[in-house]
């Protein structure tokens, strides 16, 4: 199977649903090491994404991803808006105007998203940010695609790696974002941005599997 416009829309709607569902939990994680609004901000952004999907009709997976990017950039604010927005924008560019995305393209779309996040946030591995979930996800997706697996398997591999990556942020000391001001007190908490990346990828993988 490959990823069509319809399945991309279904996956994005699934992502919006999971962010709405996890909103309080993400905000609680952020309250521990940030300023307690991560779930609130992402939920506001994905609600705008859902509303836009109701009224607009993107014609390719790339256009769907671009709609997500511009909605998040113009509604989320905080650090998450530009970071997730730039990630989706680069993903949209990597998807190009193809009508369907195959496994290899999905892997390169994820890699482009990571490139955007890193360029905008200037975070490196182990800084205790969303990059620590996104990076292993990109590598797992590339390996699965190279192995000839289908789109849903590639996304499932990415989601599993992101979940582990999010957990692995727990012992780290934050060096970026508001959590960095906690110094050693940031140790022992999962990074909310990494956790939301894991939830997003799990939702995308589940949607791809169901279609």
């Amino acid at each position: 199977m490959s990823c069509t416009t319809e399945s991309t829309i279904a996956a994005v709607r699934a992502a919006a649903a999971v962010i709405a569902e996890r909103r309080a939990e993400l905000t609680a994680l952020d309250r521990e090491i940030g300023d307690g609004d991560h779930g609130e901000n992402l939920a506001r952004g994905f609600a705008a994404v859902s509303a836009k999907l109701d009224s607009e009709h993107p014609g390719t997976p790339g256009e769907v991803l671009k709609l997500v990017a511009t909605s998040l950039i113009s509604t989320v604010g905080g650090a998450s808006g530009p970071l997730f927005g730039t990630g989706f924008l680069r993903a949209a560019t990597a998807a190009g105007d193809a009508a369907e995305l195959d496994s290899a393209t999905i892997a390169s779309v994820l890699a482009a998203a990571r490139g955007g996040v890193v360029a905008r946030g200037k975070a490196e591995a182990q800084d205790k940010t969303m990059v620590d979930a996104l990076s292993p996800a990109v590598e797992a997706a590339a390996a699965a695609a190279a192995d000839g697996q289908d789109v849903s398997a590639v996304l499932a591999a990415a989601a599993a790696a992101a979940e582990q990556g999010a957990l692995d942020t727990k012992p780290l000391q934050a060096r970026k974002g508001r959590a960095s001001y906690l110094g050693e007190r940031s140790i022992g908490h999962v990074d909310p941005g990494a956790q939301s990346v894991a939830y997003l990828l799990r939702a995308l993988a589940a949607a791809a599997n169901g279609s």
Partner: protein
Amino acid sequence: MKKIINDPSTVVTEALQGMAAAHPELISVSYAPDFITRADAPVADKVALVSGGGSGHEPLHGGFVGAGMLDAAVPGPVFTSPTPDQVTAAARAVDGGAGVLLIVKNYTGDVLNFETAAELADAEGIAVQTVLVADDVAVKDSTWTAGRRGVGGTVLVEKIAGAAAARGDDLAAVAAIAQRVSDGVRSMGLALAPCTVPHSGEPSFSLGDDEIEMGVGIHGEPGREKMKLAPADDLVSIMLTAIVDDLPFTAGSSTLLFVNGLGGTPQIELYLAYNSARKFLAGRGIEVDRSLVGNYITSLEMQGMSITLLQLDDEMTELWDAPVQTAALRWGV
């Protein structure tokens, strides 16, 4: 949580409507995207100053929109930076042809959104420069953190750069004086009690009855340490020692001393702290030539204060004294 609100999701919009209604001669407010401009914007051939950030720090920044200070303020949701399209729309609305200076507090969200906004405005042909304020000495430098936070010094950058723009300096000159103020200002805060963000309903942190957070940030971010409450002279001494040693301010320095309330501290305590600060600085031979005491950059109802010290030169002093006519800062008019 006890607050005078109708609905947590409409707090910022309703506050903006109130501000617009209270000060029609000074400001006008645009909605969706939200931003506040001078009533007479754009002012032809004058460099326009735009600042912004999360709401909840009032009077920052909307209270400083008007002649001699900001041309526009861009409020985000409470404690969350505004989005790039808001900032770009504000810049477009106030550009009088001489360009726009963005004054940005060093917080990751503010930096990223204003950076994107600057790229968008530039693409539209608006000349844009950005000055970052990063004056909080409580925070370790950027090797360890996202860099020092921008706090009380922002008010002084906005006032002095605003006066430079009002007298007709060009964009490069206004940016240069803003940068000079940013380079010469240091701050530190403390909290006696946290604040509660309306949409979360939970206090931003917890403190024992006899505890304070020394070095707190304007969103309740932790500072240097939790410590026992001590007499004002001792607290002021800890803060000013950190501030004075950091630049460093030396004997004979001419300074502006700014004692700021975080929203929940009575004026009597701020003046008492100001008195302590004057005694401390006199002990170090540091001259205080200009003063500001009151609630200017707040953290909702947080109980606490910050101290800001600016190294003055003659030009900065003259620009500080220049007329200003805004909702929250007004003199010489």
